[in-house]
């Protein structure tokens, strides 16, 4: 008991991998027990900014005790901008690993879609590395030609790309890429903006296939205590006793049929 804490990690490296997208490797205890689909609560050093930024784990290097995060700077004078100014050797406070992670065992012997959209793309990388399945189809949706993590994906599965502006791969979204390439699967794992997840949930329902989606919500505690980050569930949730599950604790990954989005 009482073994987790807010930990002071160390920035190992930081680079910009696309316009406004940064990749940071952090040396942290959290690497020991992290799984794909979990996230870190990352804290700024600014006393005016109290709340953590939840950022998905993009890659895990257990051997060296390091985690990779890939994040977007959402604007000027934001916490993510402060992260982006950090350099190798700097200290960074984190809590993690948090959340449930993707249930990879479900994929055994099956054809799967690993779908990421926008800044939901990063967690798909560690998922692609960990998952064992019959056919690993990675579908990544980007805005434009800045297809960050593409190389890493190519090394870890069949990669299909969609871009909003059509500059690379299928013009449109991840579902357009599936249709254009005539792909199919038995299980879906997806992370991305809510409209994308909603469409994927519908697609899965139609095709009657199992679908896991990773949700996003504003967080305060990140560990299930404050009830800030709930999503509506179709059934009464056993912890909350109402139709709400905590994304930070019970998620961020849910069976698409469990949640109303």
């Amino acid at each position: 008991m009482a073994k987790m804490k807010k930990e002071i990690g160390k920035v190992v490296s930081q680079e910009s991998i696309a316009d406004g997208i940064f990749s940071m490797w952090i040396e942290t205890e959290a690497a020991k027990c992290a799984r794909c689909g979990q996230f870190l609560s990352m804290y700024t050093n600014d006393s005016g900014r109290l709340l953590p930024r939840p950022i998905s784990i993009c890659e895990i290097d257990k051997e060296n005790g390091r985690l990779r995060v890939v994040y977007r700077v959402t604007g000027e004078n934001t916490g993510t901008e402060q992260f982006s100014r950090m350099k190798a050797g700097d200290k960074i406070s984190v809590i993690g690993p948090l959340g449930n992670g993707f249930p990879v065992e479900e994929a055994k012997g099956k054809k799967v879609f690993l779908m990421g959209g926008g800044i939901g793309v990063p967690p798909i990388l560690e998922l692609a590395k960990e998952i064992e399945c019959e056919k690993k189809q990675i579908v990544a949706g980007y805005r434009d030609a800045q297809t960050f993590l593409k190389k890493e994906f190519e090394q870890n599965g069949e990669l299909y790309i969609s871009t909003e502006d059509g500059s690379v791969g299928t013009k449109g979204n991840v579902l357009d890429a599936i249709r254009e390439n005539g792909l199919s699967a038995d299980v879906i794992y997806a992370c991305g903006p809510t409209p994308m997840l909603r469409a994927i949930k519908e697609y899965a329902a139609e095709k009657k296939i199992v679908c896991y989606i990773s949700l996003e919500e504003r967080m305060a505690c990140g560990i299930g205590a404050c009830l800030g980050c709930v999503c509506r569930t179709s059934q009464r949730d056993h912890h909350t006793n109402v139709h709400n599950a905590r994304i930070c604790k019970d998620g961020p990954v849910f069976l698409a049929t469990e949640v109303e989005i």
Partner: protein
Amino acid sequence: MNMTVNIAGVEWKNPVTVASGTFGSGAEYADFVDISRLGAVTTKGVASVPWQGNQTPRVAETCGGMMNAIGLQNPGIELFCQRDIPFLRKYDTKIIVNVCGRSEEDYCEVVERLGNEDVDMLEINISCPNVKEGGIAFGQNPKAAQDITRAVKKYAKQPVIMKLSPNVTDIGEMAKAVEAGGADAVSLINTLTGMKIDIRRRTFALANQTGGVSGPAIHPIAVRMVYQAAQAVKLPVIGMGGIACAEDAIEMMLAGASAVSVGTANFHNPTVTLEIIEGIEAYLKENHMEDVKDLVGAVQA
């Protein structure tokens, strides 16, 4: 060194508890802190039946603080008694159950139900700004505050702490009103009502439009109100609002608080409560003080 405090007849091993709603019922923070080291645990508000709470977004960051409009989501008193009280009882700490309701009957029902339970104190939240009828009506009117206190006291088997709203003109008057109603202690402050607008989408940042501001940003306002409340009544005062380190807690006690609650700071640093307890001990030692109670109201003009 004596760190114990006595709040309305209940002895806490130290003057530090957690603020309602920021610590769940303790289970989530048990990974971070040894709950037995806390003076008391104050639970999230519980109502007579489960409440769904507000739509999301429910939280937003503000400079030096945050805003929340959880809307008192809670599992209802039955599950709470079955699951959360037994969980907390495993620890050597006092249990303060925070009670919410929409009407006098709601409050009284929960308070009566808790009479049979092994809990140490009740905190009555008449100050939640985040639900239409979440008690704020009681918390902004001295007469209503006095009446609800009196009603609750009829059913209460445990000492009753009335939790006051800072969204009032005269906090001393409110403290006096609940004292007149028979309260055993007062706690303050609950959150200050705030609003944030997303200028890109031109909508409210919180689904509920308004939310309660908490965290270090409100600390000076909280200290002032705790001081005024402590001056106004003889009851013990539990001080809270933006306490984020031992210095803040000591400041609150010097202003007149007999004990302190730590809220939002848990989100920033889950082990902050223990650091605060240790920091108070260190301060007493440094200043050659024997008893933490000597801090209470000890500010000098």
